[in-house]
Each structure stands twice: as C-alpha cells, then as structure tokens.
C-alpha cells in the first residue's frame, strides 16, 4: 500500500461511517436535515477517495478527465435543475425517476466491463467466474430497476395505463417466460464470459421483466413498488461494487438495499398487505370490478355554503387529506380555511392515513409545505377512536383510505386494509371532482351513507369558496 492507497482507505472508512450516521439520522425528525447533508458530504468524500487513489497509483489521463467533467456537468446540472423545479406534489414520480437512473448507471458500468473486459480489467474482483456472476447480477438488477422505475413514474404521471391483457392471468406466463429467458442468458454468460448475444438477451429479458412486473400493479400499491425498486437499486450498486472491486460500493449498496426492504415492509404493514400479494396480486379491484363496483344510487350533494354553515356550528373538525388535495395544489388554501376555523375556536386536526397520497408521508410533506403545525397531524391509530366525538369530517380528495368496505365487506378487494373510520363522525363532507372511483377502482360505500354529503369540485376551488363563505359568516373575526 502506498500513501495514496492508505489515504483512500481512510477516506472510505470515514465515508461509510458518515453514510451510516446519515441513514440513521434521516429516521428522526430533528436530525433529518443535517443527516441528509452528512450523507451528501460522505458521497463527496468517496469521490475524492477514488480520485486520490487513482492519482497516486496509475494517474488519470487527460482524456479521462474530459469525460469525467462532461458526465459530471451534464448529469449534475440536470439533477439540480430537476430537483429545484419539480413541484412537491409530484415527489413520488421524481423519486422513481432518480431511482431508475441509479439502476441505469449500474447497468451501464456492468455492460462496459462485460463488453470490454480487457480494457476495463478493473477487477480486483479477480476476473473469471466471480466477475461474470457480478456482471450478471448487476445487469439483471440494474435493468429491472431502470425499466420498473420508469414504468412506475409513467403510471403515476398518468402517461401510461395498464393494458387489459396485463390484468389477465396471462401476464404470469409472460413474466415467467421472461424470467426463464433471463436465467438462460445469465447461465450462458456465466459459462462463456464474452458471449455478447447472451449479454444483450439478458439486458432485454430483464428489462422487459421489469416492465411486465410493474405494469399490472395497481395504483394503491405503487408506493410499495417504488420503495422496493429503491431497495433494488441498492442491490444493483452493491453488485456494481463486486464488478469494479470496491468495498465502499458494496457496503453502501447493501445498507440501502436492506434499509429499503425495511421501509417496504413498513409500508406493506400500513396497508395490511403482504409483499407477495402486492407483487403478484395485480391491481386491486380490477379482477372483481363487478363485485366491488356498481352504480351509486343514494348520493347527497351540497354546496360550499351549506358546508360552511355546518362547519361554523362544529366544535371538532377533522381533515382527511388525500391525493386529490395534492393534485389540486390546494394545501395552502386548506391552511387558510383551517386558520379561519381555528380563529373561531374550532379544534382542527388532520387524519393522516399511512398510505394517503401516492407515497407514505406524502401528505405530511404537503401539509408541512403549507405550514400546518406538526402536532395537528394525527396518525390513523390515534385518530380513529376520536371520530365518534367529531362533529365534521372533511375528506379532501381521499377515497380508498376512507372506504368502510375494508372493514365490512369480506368480498371487497380492499377488505382487511386499515382505514380511517370517518363514518363514525356526525357529518362527513367529501370534496371530490366527480363520482369516479378511487385509485383502486373500487366503489366507496361511504358516499352513500346518510351522514355523508358530497361537495363536487376541484379541491382548491371548493376550499376557496368555503373560505369566502366562512368569512361572510364572520367566523374567526376578532370582536
């Protein structure tokens, strides 16, 4: 070991320590922001480590610098621009996009080493079988992560919907066929490391498998998929670590992979679903559209004015935010409405379902943006016993998470999912654009209950009207 190698070793150790502290800190509200910066610093250190090591041993050619700077500038600036521009409401898609690019990177590295084994001879991996296996794993996982994430993003953006045949049982056969093709290609590649047709077969097979597995998954389950793909991209990074012989990569990739798996499990628990049923069960409701579906017969609708009158008389109000609120960008208007209510002496809390929105914590982020105090956000287990003592519940663009079918109807695909018991409250107002079904495509019995009134319209517009009405009623005026 010369000085540069020792220096790199020391830097790597510090980087791993900081990364671990970073992930740990990210799980606590108080330390989260510093922890994020810590992790960013660790990443920077790791890059310096690689550069120092190379400068001290083999040196870095001028030509290589040009490509490094080119890649850094383009990727880095695009990332920075995307991060600044993207609205808070489309966070899930953004994470999916970033994640897919991470997978793509691992894939490209493995491809590079596979296509040019002599030139890249990176491997302290020792070449031979170990390197071949690492390449296969990296290509396979990287490819699935990339296509899966892109499909997840496109579905969340509404650019892509599930073709009907993907809902049928046939998709299992297709996916199994793709998996077998990938496996054959992988074995071929392992036997003769320089078999380029097997390599491309593996890339295409696993890429299509990523699409085939993600595409049929129903909207309500999408957060779980993104979290799982995030875990995969950690695995892909660890595999890339084996390919180029970097222990730092292996440890960081393994940490992300394992942590992502835990987070995925936490999300599954929140929905009372198993990971297996999320991955292979297909879209909720699609198979039983006739069973859970049907027309609404007994709907009461009312205007913002009536809603305001009821709110004025209330003492306890619970807000149930959902994806509709995020789409309408209505969080700030909502905050103004609740400020008026609070000024009028009405107790306002927010009921946060673990999977409300398109991602766990989506609603928390959104409401935090609108300056809603953290203490007013109540988790499902805390708020559920309080609904019978609640005067008015305002459901804003949420649907499946307040569907009482999940408790009462054993034939419903939602059955067993924990939901908010809003129907226990005295009055429920559901603000919704129309009578369309929720993301899961299942009819919501809540809308037909006697104590439920629908207020049709875009969440932002309805809340705006509500604000005007409340002000006319003179709520919250001093004196």
């Amino acid at each position, binding site marked *: 070991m010369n000085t540069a190698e020792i220096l790199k070793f020391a830097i790597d150790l510090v980087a791993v320590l900081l990364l671990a502290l970073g*992930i740990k800190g990210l799980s606590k509200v108080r330390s989260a922001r510093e922890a994020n910066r810590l992790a960013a610093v660790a990443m920077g250190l790791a890059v310096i480590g690689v550069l120092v090591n190379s400068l001290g041993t083999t040196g870095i050619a001028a030509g290589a610098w040009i490509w490094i700077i080119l890649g850094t500038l383009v990727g880095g600036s695009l990332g920075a621009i995307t991060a600044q521009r993207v609205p808070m409401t489309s966070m899930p898609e953004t994470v999916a996009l970033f994640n897919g690019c991470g997978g793509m*990177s691992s894939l490209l590295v493995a491809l590079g080493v596979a296509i040019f084994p002599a030139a890249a001879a990176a491997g302290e991996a020792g070449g031979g079988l170990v390197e071949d296996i690492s390449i296969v794993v990296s290509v396979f996982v990287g490819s699935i992560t990339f296509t899966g994430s892109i499909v997840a993003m496109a579905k969340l953006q509404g650019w892509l919907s599930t073709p009907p045949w993907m809902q049928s049982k046939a998709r299992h056969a297709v996916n199994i066929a793709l998996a077998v093709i990938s496996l054959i290609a992988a074995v071929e590649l392992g036997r003769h490391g320089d078999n380029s047709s097997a390599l491309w077969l593996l890339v295409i097979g696993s890429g299509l498998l990523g699409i085939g597995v993600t595409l049929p998954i129903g909207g309500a389950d999408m957060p779980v998929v993104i979290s799982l793909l995030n875990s995969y991209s950690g695995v892909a990074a660890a595999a890339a670590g084996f390919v180029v012989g970097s222990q730092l990569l292996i*440890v960081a990739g*393994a*940490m992300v992979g394992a942590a992502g798996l835990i987070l995925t499990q936490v999300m599954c628990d929140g929905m009372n679903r198993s990971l297996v049923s999320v991955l292979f069960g297909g879209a909720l409701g699609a198979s039983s559209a006739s069973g859970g579906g049907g027309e609404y017969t007994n709907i009461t609708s009312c205007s913002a004015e009536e809603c305001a009158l009821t709110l004025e008389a209330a003492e306890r109000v619970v807000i149930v935010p959902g994806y509709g609120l995020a789409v309408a960008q209505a969080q700030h208007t909502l905050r103004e409405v609740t400020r008026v209510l609070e000024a009028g002496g009405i107790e306002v809390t927010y009921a946060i379902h673990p999977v409300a929105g398109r991602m766990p914590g989506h609603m928390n982020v959104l409401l935090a943006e609108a300056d809603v105090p953290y203490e007013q956000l109540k988790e499902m287990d805390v708020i559920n016993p309080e609904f019978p003592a609640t005067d008015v519940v305002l459901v804003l663009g949420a649907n499946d998470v307040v569907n009482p079918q999940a408790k009462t109807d054993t034939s419903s695909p939602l059955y067993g999912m924990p939901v908010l018991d809003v129907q226990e409250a005295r009055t429920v107002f559901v603000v919704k654009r129309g009578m369309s079904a929720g993301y899961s495509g299942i009819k919501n019995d809540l809308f037909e209950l006697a104590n439920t009134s629908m207020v049709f319209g875009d969440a932002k517009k309805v809340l705006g009207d509500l604000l005007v009405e409340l002000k006319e009623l003179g709520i919250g005026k001093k004196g």
Partner: protein
Amino acid sequence: MSFLSEALWVLLLGSLLGLELIGKVPPTLHTPLMSGANAISGITMLAALTLIIKAGDNIPLLAMGAVALGFALFNVIGGFLVTDRMLAMFSRKSARRKDTNS
C-alpha cells in the same frame, strides 16, 4: 478468492447494518428517507468513475462510463437536493414553533 470472501463479509455486515439503522421511522419521514436512501444508492457513480479512469484510450468505453456517471450524478445530486427541499419544510416550521413558545 481473498477479495471475494472479504467482499462477501462486507456485503453481509452492510446488510445487517442497513436492517438495524432503520427501526422506527415516523410516517412523516418515509418519503424523505426513501428519497435520501435513493440518493445514496447513486453511489454507483464511484464505479462509473473507476471505469472511466481505467478505460485508457478506449473511446466507446469512456463514453459509456461518462453516460453512467451522468445518470448516477443525476440520481445523487437530484436526490439529495430534493430530500433537502422536503426536510427544509419541517425544520423551518420547528424553528418558528420555538419562537412562539419562548
């Protein structure tokens, strides 16, 4: 074999560490945590960097490495900045709460 066995130990211990690091996470932090962990998974940029450095004068490989580096950095920089944006909203609020309490 020595690299392999060492690397497998690293893989095992790293995975165990990852499982332990996240025990209880308040739902508020699920999205930022996912996004932060996602940024860290962009550490493949190190592999891309190594690839470029060792590529010599092989232009296709250099280009591939540069594209891989670009994708990884898109993930890393974008991921950390987005996470910071989300977390900034929480910390700004708690700072204000402190003011009103005192």
